[in-house]
């Protein structure tokens, strides 16, 4: 009995001595783990609302984390600037980097620098070799909108539309193409009677409301008999262009539109009376940081992180806009 008491005492002492050593063991296992981190964030550009919201979200998430300092840079939509910012981050001794840069083609040269220094990188929206990807799940984001539009047609137009306008952005390559494909397939697979191929009109929106207005204004007179027209659009701006063109042609009641983004201009159209904007898939740029910063800390503390982390998209319409943006639309949400 006496012996076992002594044994217990020795065991307790050993444990008390070893416990403070655990963090050291952790630090040795994970050389990048620290109490505080400096993380570089190079934004795509500071000239558009979407990326400004991304930056604000990242700063807010860093503040919430409590042990993260953010060093900011602006890639100015330019590969050379993104490369210069990468070199600057390394010179400043950052622990990790969040890169929102303009083109996949620059990924190799940028990542070669960070790999040499052993700095983990999270790439927003544009994949880079060796970086953890964070961004839109483009195809599924598209599908959400397409399926919602298909369900609306089933309920309101007896499951049939006469024509489909596809407001796309061909020059920007595979990412917007995936969104458009998701929307089109989501709609065609949901609606009871898919739109015939010869009644699908693919129009280059050039990503602007003005161009969208113009091409739809040119197209509507070519389908005078179509009374049930659906439109799938690359973003809120192009959706607004479609609706404006239909209104100008006196055919607003014949069209229903979905889009991508759900930015404030899109939300305004969604909550409007007799709206022809059914809704848009939300990307929530203001929340990017709250997924990215914890993931970066996990990377720095050597915890497993998925190679690709996707935004949690939601299709935003009149039914749920107040759950997400009640403060933005007090009159609508008070009703």
């Amino acid at each position: 009995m006496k012996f076992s008491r002594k044994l217990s005492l020795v065991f307790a002492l050993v444990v008390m001595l070893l416990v403070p050593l655990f963090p050291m063991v952790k630090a040795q296992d994970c050389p990048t783990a620290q109490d505080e981190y400096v993380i570089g964030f190079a934004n795509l550009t500071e000239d558009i609302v979407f990326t400004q919201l991304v930056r604000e979200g990242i700063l807010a998430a860093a503040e919430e984390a409590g042990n993260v300092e953010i060093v900011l840079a602006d890639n100015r939509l330019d590969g050379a600037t993104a490369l210069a910012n990468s070199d600057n981050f390394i010179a400043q001794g950052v622990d990790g980097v969040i890169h929102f840069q303009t083109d996949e083609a620059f990924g190799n040269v940028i990542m070669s620098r960070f790999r040499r220094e052993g700095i983990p990188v999270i790439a927003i929206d544009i994949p880079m070799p060796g970086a953890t990807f964070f961004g839109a799940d483009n195809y599924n984001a598209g599908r959400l909108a397409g399926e919602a539009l298909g369900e609306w047609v089933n309920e309101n137009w007896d499951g049939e539309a006469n024509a489909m306008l596809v407001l796309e952005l061909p020059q920007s390559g595979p990412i917007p193409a995936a969104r458009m494909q998701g929307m089109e397939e989501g709609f065609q697979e949901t609606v009871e009677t898919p739109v015939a191929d010869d009644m699908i009109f693919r129009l280059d929106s050039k990503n602007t409301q003005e161009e969208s207005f113009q091409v739809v204004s040119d197209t509507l007179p070519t389908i005078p008999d179509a009374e049930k027209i659906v439109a799938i659009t690359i973003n809120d701006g192009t959706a607004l262009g479609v609706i404006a063109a239909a209104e100008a042609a006196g055919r607003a009641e014949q069209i229903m539109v979905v889009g991508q983004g759900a930015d404030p201009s899109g939300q305004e159209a969604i909550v409007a009376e007799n709206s022809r904007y059914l809704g848009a898939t939300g990307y929530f740029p203001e929340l990017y940081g709250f997924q990215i910063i914890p993931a970066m800390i996990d990377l720095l503390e050597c915890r497993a992180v998925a190679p690709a982390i996707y935004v949690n998209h939601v299709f935003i319409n009149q039914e749920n806009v107040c759950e997400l943006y009640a403060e933005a639309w007090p009159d609508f949400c008070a009703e």
Partner: protein
Amino acid sequence: MKSATSRSLAEIASLVVMLAVIVIFFAQASPVFLTQRNLDNTLLDITTIGILAVFTTMLMIGGGLDLSIGSTVALCGVVIGALQSTWGILPAAGFAIVVGALVGLLNGFLVTYVGINPLITTLGMLSIARGLAFVFSDGLTIPVFDLEGTQIDAYNTFTQFGEGQILGFATPVFVMFTLFIVGMLVLQFTSYGRAMYAIGGNDKASQLAGLSVRRYRMTAYMLSGLSAGIASVLLTSRLYAADPRAAPAMELTVITAVVLGGISLAGGKGTLIGTALGVLILTTLLNGMKLLSTSTDAQNIAQGIVLLVAVGLDQLRTRNINWSRWLRGSRVVPGGAGAKTAAGGD
């Protein structure tokens, strides 16, 4: 001439003081600023601006102006990307430099022979070159890689333009230094350099003196385009990619640095040492602001203020204000004592 030389030395001294103040300020504000790594990065970052600034200086001394250099850099890069697999990467790079020179030559022809204002000519060329860059690339960035694995040695050589080292300097930095030195020698010790000062100072007098003003100016525009081609090869090699959006608003940065360095918008004045200091001041300022995480808006405002201050100082120099009279309440004395001579140049 003596007073012009001493005035030129005073201007350079004031630029050195300005640079020193900026360096001291940012050295205090950021522990990273004076590290070897940051200095290396800064030098590498200014190579495109520096190379363009050498020939913009020559052009502006001769009374010209080229707003199309940034777009020409993008166009030449796209030429490399588009031709790399059919022509081979090195011939494509060589041809890109030729394209740059041809763009400059066309600018020169339109300005000197057709008589279109340089601002309008090169503004038009800015749009044309950028538009062609988008057309040839379908608006997409073109990766510059040996995708078929048939030109390994050639691509290795091409990569050295951007990533290699010569005499301990990164290749683009070495090229920039070399061009600055050659440019200084040309401006100071050759008949071409003296002719550019004379033409910029007074082109009619130069014409009467027997100088072929058109030929000299066309050469200056051609060299300006050529420099865009050279800068484009180095940039494309560094990035392993050709981007039709490359070098955005680069012409404004270059002109800001050049004017800040004492090159007169009216022509006939300035030195490449001043331009080198102007480039260093501007890029050091922007680098320091970046290190302090200053917003892009603030950086743009700073660059704009630097441009206005530089142009303002240029105007004051050109109008040759008699400061003692001005302080006594007299008005500005346009073209007062010591006004620009017909031969121009300091």
